[in-house]
């Protein structure tokens, strides 16, 4: 009787073992490390504008699987679609892939951040360079962003 059950469901067993032992080869990885950025603008030029500030404390680390057999990309977006001030982000010196132009974070639409990321690589990384800018006539206040990075295939 037992042999009959094993015979019936051995496909399931084979697939299960395959999943367990090949998860590393099948899955991609993406992590953000570093203290959540807080950019404070507190200086400016008479007759000019407020002084922009930058933060590049955080690091993005990413890895790609063997399959599918194509390049990967990372996109970025924010949940704050009506910010008071301008916040941009750009990938700083990615070890793999091509950094796209700085993205202005004012939309929930995912924008290309790093493209042409090769498959079957681990430990790829870049720093996240955030730049905050504002004008005097925009007044005083605070913007909160939940910034999301997504690693995906084209």
């Amino acid at each position, binding site marked *: 009787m037992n042999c009959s059950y094993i015979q019936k469901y051995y496909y*399931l067993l084979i697939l299960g073992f395959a999943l367990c032992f090949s998860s590393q080869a099948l899955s991609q990885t993406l992590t953000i490390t570093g203290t959540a950025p807080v950019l404070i603008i507190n200086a400016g030029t008479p007759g000019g504008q407020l002084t922009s500030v930058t933060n590049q404390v955080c690091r993005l680390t990413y890895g790609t699987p063997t399959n599918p057999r194509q390049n990967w990309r990372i996109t970025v977006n924010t949940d704050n679609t009506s910010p008071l001030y301008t916040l941009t982000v750009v990938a700083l010196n990615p070890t793999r892939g091509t950094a796209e132009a700085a993205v202005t974070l004012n939309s929930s639409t995912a924008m290309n951040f790093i493209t042409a990321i090769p498959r079957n690589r681990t430990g790829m990384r870049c720093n996240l360079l955030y730049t905050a800018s*504002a004008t005097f*006539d925009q007044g005083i206040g605070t913007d909160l962003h939940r910034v999301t990075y997504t690693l995906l*295939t084209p």
Partner: protein
Amino acid sequence: MKTKTAFVLTRCLYFLVTLTVTIAVLPPSVVCQTSRSHNVTVTVNKVTVIAVNPPAINLDIPSGPTAVVIAGVDQMTVTDQTTTLLWGTNSASTKITISSTTLATPLFSLQAVALSPSTGSPQTVTLSTGDQDFITNMLPSSGSVSVRYTGIALASAGEGTDTYTVTFSIIGI
């Protein structure tokens, strides 16, 4: 023969069911997309800044190009509009004040006014040691404005020189 066919069909059915169930519960890491998020905060604090150019000017009577001396009139005047006052403020309401150093025995008086600033209300001020409102009710803005100084001397006071240190202050309210 019939038994063998049934066996093969059954195994195929089991495989399809297994495959379907597996895909249905497949962990997200095997699907081609992974996301991570973090918080980013942008804060703009109150900033009020001011500058004045040039650092020094001279008003000369009667040699200044705008000096006014009229025979039979005691008061003589000279004006200067070469000063530029620059500011930047993101405060909801801002004002600029003006004051000058104390002269023990001033011979002459000095007036100042901002000429048509892009924001706020200008005041014509006769300088004294206390802070006086120079431009009031300024909105968040950045800009520059010409300042006209008027030196006023009386012939009956004689000749001489007065040197003032004029201080412009910007205050965010």
